[in-house]
Structures are given as structure tokens and as C-alpha cells.
């Protein structure tokens, strides 16, 4: 029977949450297609394959000393080897920084169409129809592949995590890896600074809509002070140098889950939402009524943050 294959993701031997989410996705898609769910684990030993087998019934372990750390050349070769050896119809990859680095290459290697950055997949008439965000999350589209096999990358949080507890099989798949053209020199931390916003109970975050450094300070920093919380930012604010990288919330920054998260002038791109959607109460202030941030907020005000925040300061007394 054909297989729907999750490519496990790890850093320093720790599985990513996205891998567990894709185990759930693979089971759903496989059930709709009359296929079986499976996973492939590329690592320096078989320890991780055994761990993944508690989430999914069948695991293929490609074990090689070269696979301790992620590498695009190795991963696309390993995907091809497993797909060719094990009757794989679909390959599911996290839409993470590593995932987008090799998914396209893996798709070309196996001659498959790829739909990237998906948030849903349904089986209709024997075909998998993928839903994905476009235009910064303002519009969604549905696509499928025309090839016999498919590759899909899924954004973080698209599916619930699968719970551990099963006892799947682990089968070795051998592959002779051609040397990668990339050499990892080191991994470095780029975020300096002592502030740890992940511990804050109240976070006031500003985005592109805060317009400039002085204005960001005026509204965001002051409201944070008033509420005894921390100020934070979405990526464009950090890129522009209005605040430190240590205060960036999102995929490439911190993950936070405060009691109150105020997102001002932040549209709600998935990369930002990934870092703050666990917040208890989310307030969105944005001029654009169609900003995706309103889809996850508890309370929303459609308006100019430079009018709303001073008015909030006043109301707070």
C-alpha cells in the first residue's frame, strides 16, 4: 500500500513539534487516500527513529554519521532514497527554516509537484487538495499536484500534535550519500541582551504600523511601562533597528505566552503569530479591518494606534 511520509525534523537530537503535527496530518491524509502513514528519520543513530515510532506506525531510519545536523544536499538525497525504496506517494515537510531549504530540491529529485506553506489538506475524489495562505495571509488558495507523487510543506500549528504512546516499527533504509557542497562551520547565537520577554505577564508589541523609532517608543514602550509589562516587536521593527532583536516575537525570535498580548500595527503574518498565539488574551489594534491578526485576537480595535494607545493610557488613569 502506498505511503504518506513525514520527514522528521530535529535540532541537536530534539524532535521539532512540527514533526508531531505532521504525524497527525499524515494519518488524516493517508486515511482519505487508502494509504498508510509513515515517517522517515535522518540521523547519526537510530535513537530518534525509535522515538518517532511512538507517534506513527512505521518509521524508516536512514542512519549515517553525516546526518547528525541538517543539510540540504543530504536531506534531498535521503528523501529520494526512501521514496524510491518504499512506495511513497506523498511527502510532508515542516514549512520551517530547514524545511523550505530542501523541500523544493527534494520535490525535483523525485519528480513531484510541490505545494508549500499549506495549512490544510483534504482528500477529494482521490486527490489531495491543499489550502495555503497567500498575500500575507489575506487570501487563501487551494491547489493540488498533477504529478503522481506530491510534496507538501505545512506551516507550524496547522495540525494538532500527535500524542506519543504507540509502538511502531523501525526499518533501516540504506543510502550512500554524495558529499554535501555545504560545510557547517558553527552555530552561533545572534540575540544578545539580558531581557527575557518570554517570562513577561503583559507584552505590548509594535509592528511596521508604528512607523518610526521615536513613535514606536512613544506608544509601545510607554504603554508597556504603564501596564508594568515588557515591550516587544515584530520582525520589521527589529530589521529597521527601532528595538533589539531580543524583543522580537515570532518564528525567528521568541515564543511568548503572556496573560495579555497587545499587537499594535502588526498585520499578523504567520511567522509572527507562531510566536504569540499561545497568549491568554490578545488585543489587536490595526487600521486594516482585514488584517489576519483579528482572526486570532480576543478583542480588536480597527483604528489608528497613535490615537487608540494614548486614549488607552488616559483610560488607564
Amino acid at each position, binding site marked *: 500500500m502506498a505511503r504518506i511520509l513525514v520527514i522528521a525534523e530535529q535540532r541537536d537530537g530534539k524532535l521539532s513539534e512540527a514533526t508531531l503535527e505532521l504525524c497527525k496530518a499524515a494519518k488524516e491524509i493517508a486515511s482519505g487516500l487508502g494509504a498508510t502513514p509513515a515517517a522517515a528519520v535522518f540521523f547519526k543513530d537510530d535513537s530518534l527513529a525509535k522515538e518517532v515510532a511512538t507517534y506513527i506506525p512505521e518509521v524508516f531510519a536512514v542512519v549515517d554519521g553525516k546526518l547528525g545536523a541538517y543539510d*540540504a544536499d543530504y536531506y534531498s538525497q535521503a528523501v529520494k532514497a526512501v521514496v524510491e525504496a518504499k512506495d511513497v506517494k506523498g511527502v510532508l515537510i515542516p514549512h*520551517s*527554516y530547514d524545511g*523550505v*531549504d530542501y523541500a*523544493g*530540491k527534494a520535490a*525535483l*529529485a523525485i519528480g513531484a*509537484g*510541490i505545494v*508549500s*506553506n499549506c495549512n490544510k489538506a483534504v482528500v477529494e475524489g482521490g486527490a489531495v*487538495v491543499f489550502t495555503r*495562505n*497567500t*498575500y*500575507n*495571509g*489575506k*487570501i*487563501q488558495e*487551494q*491547489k*493540488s*499536484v*498533477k504529478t503522481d507523487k506530491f510534496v507538501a510543506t505545512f506551516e507550524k500549528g496547522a495540525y494538532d500534535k500527535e500524542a506519543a504512546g504507540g509502538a511502531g516499527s523501525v526499518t533501516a533504509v540504506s543510502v550512500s550519500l554524495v558529499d554535501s*557542497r555545504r560545510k*557547517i*562551520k558553527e*552555530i552561533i*547565537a*545572534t540575540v544578545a541582551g539580558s531581557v527575557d520577554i518570554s517570562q513577561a505577564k*503583559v507584552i505590548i508589541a509594535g509592528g511596521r504600523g508604528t512607523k518610526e523609532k521615536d513613535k514606536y517608543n512613544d506608544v509601545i514602550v510607554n504603554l508597556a511601562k504603564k501596564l508594568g509589562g515588557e515591550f516587544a516587536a515584530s*520582525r*520589521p521593527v527589529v*530589521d529597521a533597528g527601532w528595538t533589539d532583536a531580543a524583543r522580537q516575537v515570532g518564528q*525567528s525570535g*521568541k515564543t511568548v505566552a503572556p496573560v*495579555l498580548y497587545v499587537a499594535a500595527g502588526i*498585520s499578523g503574518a504567520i511567522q509572527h503569530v507562531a510566536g504569540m498565539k499561545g497568549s*491568554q*488574551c490578545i*488585543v489587536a489594534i490595526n487600521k*486594516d479591518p*482585514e488584517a*489576519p491578526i*483579528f*482572526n*486570532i485576537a480576543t*478583542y*480588536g*480595535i480597527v*483604528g489608528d494606534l497613535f490615537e*487608540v*494607545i494614548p*486614549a*488607552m493610557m488616559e*483610560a*488607564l488613569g
Partner: protein
Amino acid sequence: MKIVVLVKEVPDMESKFKIIGDAKIDESQIAFKMNDFDEYAVEAALQLKEKLGGEVVILSSGPERVTKEVRQAFAMGADWGIHVCDPQIDEGDNFVVAGALVKAIESVGGVDLVLTGVQADDDQAALTGVFVADMMNFVHCTNVVKIEVGGDQKALTVNRELEGGLNEVLEMAMPAVLSIQSGINQPRYPTLPGIMKAKKKRLDLKKAADLGVSALGEAGSKTKFHKMYFPVSEHKAEIIQGDAKAAAKTLVDKLRNEAKVI
């Protein structure tokens, strides 16, 4: 150093979006601009040229109006460009477009580096750079936030951004394709003399037939588009009505007495 930068025109996301049928956005309502991530790629290329010499070639696929974005890159300092202008290419998926871009890059010859943005704001696919690299058998790296070219101009050291404030430092030989992440630099504004010069710079127009592209349109695509629509959220925020002052007052009251979070 011969550097090709792949530039895409995208809608300004502040535009008012309307969907025609369930198939495409109403472009008459849209303001177009250069994809933000590609602007960082253009700047990165110009900085490398200033340091190491050589030339920066802008390559864009799209309708006639994309000459505006190509000329913008010229005004920033790029040397010349190629405009792939053929609806049969634009009607294809990322696979078709990447195939055409590869042919155009090959027509330049002797390219050391191909730079592009990490993704386009419109389709958010993050595929084109990786496809181009693989089709040309170039080594690639995505999410690049730092580039250093070795003394012999044959090898690169790049920082690839990882999640959670980490960078992976990688070494690779050229030719290579790098997808540039935001924050790597501050893209320069075109100067007035730059804008004047940009008008005279060489821009080669290429059709699919000129490039010898075989995979075209929907037929050449590996994916099939079904439909597009505005997202329907199961959850919607409670939108607080009133002018700024009234809404702020209500919000503070709700945060205190309803959500009890302040």
C-alpha cells in the same frame, strides 16, 4: 563577480484586495511594488559589487509593468537587466517560472552568484530560489543574513538564520544561489542621478521562444490551481466599536472586568 538578482513585483499588501470569480485578484485596485525581500537581495548584490567589482544583473519575469521595478533596481545601482515578458510563463507555477529564469541566467553566462528574496509576499511559496539552484546544479542556501566572499572570489561564508535567534555559519563554493532574508542590510534609496541613469541602462526583453523554454503555462506546471478566497475564521475578535477614545475606554474596561488581565 557577476551577480544576477531575481526580482519579483508584488502587490502592496496595504492595497484593497478584491477577488474576481474565485480565480484571481482584481489588479485594477492594486498598487504594485518590488517584493521587500528582493530589495534586500539587490542591496546585498550592490554591496558585494562595491567591494569586489564586477556587475549586477537584474532578472524579472512578469507583465510589461515590471520594468518599473527593474528600473528601480537600476536606479539603486544595478548595471543592466533581463525582463522575461511572456504570459505563457506567468501563467505557469513556480516550476515553470524557475525554468524560464534558469534559461535567462544561462544566457548571461559566467554567473558567480544568484541572489533572490527568501520568499515573495504574494504567493509566499519560498520555492523559486531553491528550484533555480537545483535546476542549474548550483549549491544554494536559504534565509541568508550575512555574506562574506573569500579572497580568491571562489568561495563563500554565509550565515543562515535559524529559528529562535540562532545562525548557522556555512561555507560553500561558488557559483551559488542565496535566498536573502530581511534585516541583512538597509536597502538604499535611488538617488536622482541614479534615476536619470537608470532610464538609459540596457534592459533585454525575452519571450519564452527566445529562451527556449519548453514547460509553459498550466500545461507545463506540476501543480493545479483550484480557487482563491478570503479566509473564513472560526474565531473572530470581538471588535470594539466607537471612535478611538470610546473604544479605548471600553477596551480598558473589558481587560479589567471581563478578561481580568490587568
